[in-house]
């Protein structure tokens, strides 16, 4: 028996070409496109974390901006007060801070489900937002905190190198490697016995409890992992953006995380990734095209909910099924 079993091998076969395309992309397209894609990949990490709760555990968090923001602010604080320039240490700071906050908030939130869970996560994320907003002498208030370009694996940006070129090449690969790693880890998590237990809780809490699953404990661990993924995304996002502002802590951003997960389709593993990348393009396009970009996104969201509740991946799955049936019925001559 091969070490990689059936469905896993199929996934590797599908993911391989995508990763290859992503690897050669910076050599083909303009730097701006690569940076844009970096944003998309960063959001995809956040969405993967978010979907562990929504898609796999059945908990809708409306406060995931908190962990993204904590990751980002942890990086900014470490740079500002500890003068750390190494991205690896900054990521560690972001992960530790978001893990801590997610652990505490999780203890509080996982006692509830459904709408109460949503409102509680929202209220707690707003606490952090209001602190970032009001304690301007620490957090820079609405001006935010600037973060200089960090060193990657001990190598700093070449003297005189354009920051855009740095972001479009070295930083892009840095994000890509972490994205692939995060995706792989999440894949392992959701296919492990732990992931199966989460899905059991999602589908029937009472039965899961009877089978011997300690429901709240599993939910708490899922919450923690979810927060850490989103925090990692926040930490990776800071050097791209160059500064952190309270905008990434406010609940509208939580709404966007929910949005892109649903856009991709929260019932599939790849849905949140696709959704995050597509949403990022959609939003960038809309913001550049019209001042009424919120309305555009709102219309997309309403249409999505009413007409395509399974998201992009759900639609793709349905279409491919239809085509493959057609294919079988009319064999090639």
């Amino acid at each position, binding site marked *: 028996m091969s070490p990689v079993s059936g469905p896993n091998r199929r996934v590797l076969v599908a993911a391989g070409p995508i990763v290859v395309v992503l690897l050669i992309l910076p050599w083909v397209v303009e730097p701006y496109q690569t940076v844009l894609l970096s944003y998309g990949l960063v959001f995809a990490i956040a969405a993967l974390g978010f979907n562990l709760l929504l898609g796999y555990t059945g908990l809708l968090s409306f406060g995931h901006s908190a962990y993204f923001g904590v990751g980002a602010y942890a990086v900014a604080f470490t740079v500002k007060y500890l003068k750390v320039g190494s991205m690896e240490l900054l990521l560690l700071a972001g992960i530790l801070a978001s893990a801590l906050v997610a652990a505490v908030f999780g203890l509080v939130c996982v006692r509830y489900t459904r709408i109460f869970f949503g409102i509680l996560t929202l209220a707690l994320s707003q606490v952090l937002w209001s602190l970032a907003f009001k304690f301007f002498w620490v957090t820079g208030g609405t001006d935010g905190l600037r973060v200089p370009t960090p060193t990657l694996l001990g190598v700093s940006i070449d003297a005189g190198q354009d920051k855009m070129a740095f972001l479009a090449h070295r930083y892009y690969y840095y994000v890509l490697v972490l994205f692939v790693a995060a995706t792989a880890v999440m894949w392992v998590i959701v296919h492990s016995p732990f992931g199966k237990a989460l899905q059991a809780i999602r589908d029937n809490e009472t039965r899961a409890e009877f089978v011997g699953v300690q429901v709240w404990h599993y939910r708490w661990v899922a919450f923690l992992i979810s927060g850490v993924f989103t925090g990692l995304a926040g930490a990776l996002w800071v050097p791209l953006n160059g500064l952190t502002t309270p905008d990434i802590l406010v609940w509208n951003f939580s709404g966007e995380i929910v949005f892109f997960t649903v856009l991709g389709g929260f019932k599939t593993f790849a849905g949140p990734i696709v959704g995050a990348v597509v949403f990022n393009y959609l939003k960038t396009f809309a913001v550049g095209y019209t001042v*009424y970009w919120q309305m555009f996104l709102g219309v997309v969201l309403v249409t999505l909910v009413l007409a395509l509740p399974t998201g992009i991946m759900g639609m793709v799955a349905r279409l491919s099924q239809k085509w493959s049936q057609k294919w079988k019925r009319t064999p090639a001559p």
Partner: protein
Amino acid sequence: MDTLLIHILNSLLYAAVLFLIAGGLSLIYGVMHIVNLAHGNLYAFGAFVAAWTVGLLVGGGTPTPVLYLVLLAGPVVAAALGAVLEPTLLRPLYQRPEEYQLLITFGLLLILEDLIRLIWGPYPLSVSSLFEGMGSLNIGESIYPTYNLAVIVVGGLAAVGLWAFIYRTQFGVVLRATSQNMRMAQAMGVNVNRVYVQAFTLGCFMAGLGGAIVVPQQGAVLGMGVDALILAFVVVVIGGLGSLEGALVGALMVGVVRELGINLFPEVELAVLYLMAAVVLLIRPAGQFGRA
């Protein structure tokens, strides 16, 4: 003593406006079990409509008392908007998981936010002449704007009116029956779709009324809806989702804490409010008057 009285009046002022917004939110949740994230935008919509209508008429020879009545254009238009939105956007979703209901109201929030910008532009509208027109009262050695007192009275009247409407009329009975058990009410011959439209419209009317009465005092600005929504959430969570008594008590508590907060601990005022909501959820998840 005078300062204490002024603090109390200020608390009541916040509470009055908050009750109008949160009361509507709670009513909608109580009957339809939908948390309407776009509720704050209906409040903002009411404010903009009221400001715009009064702005058209002001200085045109319309007697001032009529202008105060013209403010009612805000709630009426907000209610009309609600009456259109419920059957078109929300009704298809009642059978679906509540994630979708939250999402569609979030989409609606985004749309309404920009719709306001599209119609009235990015600049604030103000009708401060209505605020100044009422003059002020002397309370001991301090002066207090009469308009603020009027807002408190309107808030109080709205609370009493709503209570009478829900507990003393035929419609109220139907509304409460639907809220308690929708299927049973339907089996008894209640037209649930109609009750839902009416409840949603009434909730939007209250939000619009809240918007209209703050306009003379604060003007109508972009983003007011989202800010108000979050405070209304705090109120509703403290009082209990779906309970009007809860919305009233919650609004009073938040009003008092805000007034204290602005004077004593301005940096953490908002954080304290959100923490209050979180703590209440922890101790009594259904809120003080809720029936989850």
